[in-house]
């Protein structure tokens, strides 16, 4: 049965390689590299720093956007073409389908993260680049799992894409929201402030604070301690497992 999950993972990877995903990813990264060189040209000083910083920040957003849309479109297409119905008619547990799909998408995430690292190879220290790339791969794995969960749960691309985008932005802003809530400038005792602060603290328990992942300052200023990377890896694995379990739960409850 495990080999069937592995087969699904392999076909997920093949699907990614045989669609336009590699071309689009490389074209977007190339465009960002070109834009980075433009930024370097207009900067009066610290040109390389400007280029690397611009590329790292924008490549991170672009990778998340491309991967999330790819996962959503792939799963939605499978739903629309009734390919999933055929698959589930075989002797294949639904959870194995989720595991196979997830493994394939995580592999795609790793490839995109690796591709995003290449243009930085000549501009930043290798250790810092390794940290940045690993962290990006972990972040993209979370995004892939989230997009898979949303595609299965919402069944339609628009609400699923909206949820993924809102979740990602919230996860990147969560720490700032917690700080603002914990240290109000005025009217700390107002009920609405306490209620919002309570909600934000509640969200912080179930949403990873992604602003701590894949930081550009690791490349430009100082590499992160490797212990930070291990915490990120642990948190990423846990969150991917949580999302996978949630996706399996939803898929098991679906009627086809």
């Amino acid at each position, binding site marked *: 049965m495990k080999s069937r999950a592995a087969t699904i993972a392999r076909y997920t990877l093949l699907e990614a390689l045989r669609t336009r995903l590699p071309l689009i990813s490389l074209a977007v990264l190339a465009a960002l590299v070109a834009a980075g060189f433009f930024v370097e040209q*207009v900067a*009066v000083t610290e040109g390389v720093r400007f280029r690397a910083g611009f590329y790292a920040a924008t490549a991170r957003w672009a990778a998340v956007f491309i991967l999330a849309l790819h996962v959503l479109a792939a799963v939605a297409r499978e739903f629309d073409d009734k390919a999933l119905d055929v698959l589930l008619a075989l002797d294949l547990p639904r959870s194995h389908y989720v595991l196979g799909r997830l493994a394939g998408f995580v592999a795609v995430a790793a490839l995109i993260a690796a591709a995003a690292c290449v243009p930085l190879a000549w501009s930043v220290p290798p250790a810092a680049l390794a940290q940045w790339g690993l962290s990006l791969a972990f972040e993209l794995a979370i995004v892939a799992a989230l997009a898979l969960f949303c595609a299965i749960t919402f069944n339609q691309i628009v609400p699923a894409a909206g949820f993924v985008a809102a979740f990602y932005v919230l996860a990147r802003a969560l720490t700032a929201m917690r700080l603002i809530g914990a*240290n109000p400038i005025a009217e700390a005792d107002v009920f609405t402030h306490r209620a919002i602060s309570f909600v934000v603290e509640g969200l912080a328990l179930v949403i990873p604070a992604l602003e701590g992942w894949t930081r550009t300052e690791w490349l430009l200023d100082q590499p992160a301690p490797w212990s930070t990377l291990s915490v990120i890896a642990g948190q990423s694995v846990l969150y991917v497992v*949580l999302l996978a379990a949630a996706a*399996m*739960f939803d898929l098991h409850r679906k009627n086809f």
Partner: protein
Amino acid sequence: MKTERPIRQVPRPVLSLLVLALSLQVTWQALQAPPVARADALSAPPAPATLRAVALGEPIALAQLMTLYLQAFDNQPGISIPFLQLDYGRVTQWLAAILELDPVGQYPLLMASQLYGQVPDEAKQRQMCDFVYRQFERDPERRWRWLAHCAIIVKHRLKDPRLALVYAEAITRQARRASNWARQMRIFILEDLGEREAATVLLGGLLASGEVTEPREAHFLMERLKTLQSGDGNSTPATKN
């Protein structure tokens, strides 16, 4: 057909995995130390050429965004930085960059004279007034009112009437369309400096030039001229602001 099957259809291992993963996630996050607010230093603004490129043909919109960023910089997440602790060299760089993008905008000069210029630090007040003076010289007709405000600050708060006179004379000399009260400021500063003769000559010249057309204002200035000529040293209420 119902679109959802009952929860009992979900295999027990999947349910257990979901509950376990959720519990671990909540426990993990609950055990993390709460984030600590940390004040970031104000970095230098990008070079003007970069800003022009980043503006994508909308320099005014970018200038407004930068203004709001600078204005809100003292309120960082979870921490409030007193203006006094800001690096005023950087602040003036930001204000200058914003004015480069939007030369007609008055907001940066208002911030310089009315916001950052109000801190209880003489050096920083002088830095802001100097910035306003330099920017005034680039566009006197639009920016004279902020220099007038700085003239009042240096005269009454910094007790430096000589510098106030420099500012007031700059307004009179360069801002032809400035309000009369601003253009007449130098006369009263000269009077306060004890240079009655110069003040008398200037005030007499102003009245003779016909620039003052408002009858009440002309009457007030005439009375002031008579006082100066008679040697009575009482200052006008206007100079006591």
